[in-house]
């Protein structure tokens, strides 16, 4: 039972990380209609900038504003210099341009920091683990990630549902043309949304630093899973991204943890392990396929 709870927490933690990435991506995709492959690069920029400042100053906490600033700056720069020219173009052009950005950012980071992954010192406050229940101890840092993720989700909920900007964002994701026709400064709105998305990606990147390898190409790894989240949750829906992230995180963790064991009940060891590993790595894509079959626009978008 404690093992199950631990795996559940693991799933939630993974889901929360995915949410921070997916929130920005789904907004950018839903409101501007832009497929931004460079979102993973912003995650990497956040991780590198934050980790570098944390290592130079010796303070993990100073890394946070550095990561956020660098990511938001990079996001706004990308929007202003490249993506702004792509709003009217078709998706293939956007994919090409933002894929080019991935290559440029990877090379730029290689030139600045070298090819060796960076070292991150965990702050002593978050180091170690805490006993939640008898027999269930859990790393404090992972609990902190869950907490930050839930706070961000709450903040986004309030922003989207209670503020004027949020109203425009909601309007923009349902009917872009109408918002423009009503005289809203769409350009500014787009830059803001892009910057906000980048900010969240940078935060995710920095928080991932102490548990992952801060290295070139780290953004591409998480980007694909993030797209799956966006598709399952429904393009443009923050609520969808939130629930889809949690579902995906829990399903992925659960499959990896339990599927080989279950299969071993019905077949011999090595075959069960190989099949289990195979199915669990397909798991999230299978889930996406099923969701697309039943609700082609995603779980949280009403089919019209």
């Amino acid at each position: 039972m404690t093992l199950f709870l631990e795996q559940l927490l693991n799933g939630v933690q993974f889901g929360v990380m995915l949410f921070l990435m997916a929130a920005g991506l789904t907004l950018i995709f839903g409101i501007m209609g832009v497929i931004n492959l460079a979102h993973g690069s912003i995650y990497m920029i956040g991780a590198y900038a934050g980790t570098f400042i944390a290592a130079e100053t010796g303070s993990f906490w100073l890394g946070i504003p550095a990561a956020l600033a660098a990511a938001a700056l990079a996001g706004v720069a990308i929007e202003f210099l490249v993506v702004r020219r792509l709003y009217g173009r078709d998706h293939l052009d956007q994919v090409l341009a933002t894929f080019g950005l991935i290559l440029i950012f990877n090379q730029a980071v290689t030139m600045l920091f070298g090819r060796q992954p960076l070292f991150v010192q965990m702050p002593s406050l978050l180091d170690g683990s805490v006993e939640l229940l008898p027999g269930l101890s859990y790393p404090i840092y992972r609990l902190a990630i869950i907490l930050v993720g839930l706070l961000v989700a709450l903040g986004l909920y309030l922003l989207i549902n209670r503020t004027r900007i949020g109203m425009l964002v909601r309007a923009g994701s349902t009917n872009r043309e109408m918002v423009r026709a009503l005289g809203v400064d769409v350009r500014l709105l787009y830059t803001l949304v892009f910057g906000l998305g980048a900010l969240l990606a940078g935060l995710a990147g920095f928080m991932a630093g102490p548990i992952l390898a801060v290295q070139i190409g780290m953004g591409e790894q998480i980007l694909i899973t993030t797209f799956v989240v966006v598709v399952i949750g429904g393009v443009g829906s923050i609520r969808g991204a939130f629930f889809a992230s949690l579902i995906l995180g829990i399903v992925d963790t659960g499959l990896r943890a339990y599927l080989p064991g279950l299969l071993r009940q019905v077949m011999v060891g090595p075959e069960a392990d190989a099949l289990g590993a195979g199915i669990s790595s397909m798991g999230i894509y299978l889930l996406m396929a099923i969701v697309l079959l039943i609700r082609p626009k995603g779980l949280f978008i009403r089919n019209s």
Partner: protein
Amino acid sequence: MLMRKTLLAASALVATTFGALAEDAVKIGMITTLSGPAGYLGQDVRDGFKLAMEDNKMGGVPVELLVEDDGLKPGQGKQIAERFLSESGVKLFTGIVFSNVAGATVPDIVDGGAFYISPNAGPSNLAGKSCNENYFVVSWQNDSLHESAGQLATNLGYKKAFILAPNYQAGKDALAGFKRFFKGEIAGEVYTRLDQTDFAAELAQIRAAKPDVVFQFHPGGLGITFLRQYEQAGLGKEIPMVLAEPSMDGVTLAAVGEAAIGVNVSAHWNTDFDNPANKKFMEAWNKAYNRPATYYSSQGYDTGQLIASALKATGGKLDDSFRDALRKADFQSVRGKFAFGPNQHPIQDWYALKVEKGADGKPVIKTVGEVFKDHGDAYSADCKM
């Protein structure tokens, strides 16, 4: 008129002389991985190799080193090899880091009548049935990495191991190699994903299985991620870990830091080896480059030394005599003893290393004992040359 003719003749003469000089330089085609997360591996192979060159000469013979990035793509490696063979007339190749690239590229090279000297990848098929007289491996046969880790775990007296590797060929080979020499019981065997960023699910399984020891093979960034999360989950203090050297080199150590203290590693080389060749290499490396030396760099250097020794023996000719000279392995390896087996893969000693706190408080990898003496590979019997 006469003046002009003389000038022309003179310039023609100059052109042919210099042309002949460039023609004389032995071209060495280095195909290696320089981009992406694994780019540092190829970079170390290349830079180690360069330390074996002096003023563009190896063994007194002028050489021209052509380096190209395979991007960890087998198709790209193959294309570069074909271009080098047909357009540049390269007859001597080296550099490939990854077995999947080697598998696609090496057969083309040796079928084209050229030599290939591997500084890293040593896949099993090329060591056995598909071995070739023009194919030499300076590093190791892939399985040896994990066989030595299995033997090390046995030597350390562990009875119950939990083993993990990514779900791809090298990962499966790793677990098979470990099990071949581990005498204890396997408490759990888990295949992870090559793109996995979170190992919490696996760590919980390890904790529940309560093994004596964990063996995991996760190269590069995956390994850093795994070690960090292992330590954060509090497992580092509870369950010791045995690793093969791809999971713990100087670069991994620098990124993981204190989380690595106490980890056992099996290896064929370490920075602290006390032999003249290694001291010379480490001094040259630390002078030339501002980053930790890895075993990739040592293998690049040894490959360079081997080629230099053979070029010196033949005076730069790449014919049958070159092959004979290579087989002699007449060079001082940084790992001490070195010889080729019948399938032209190394027969060498393997060592036990341990990550300890160094004098300045930073973790260092120390050599603490031996694992294998004169260890060859399981495939040489299948090799008919």
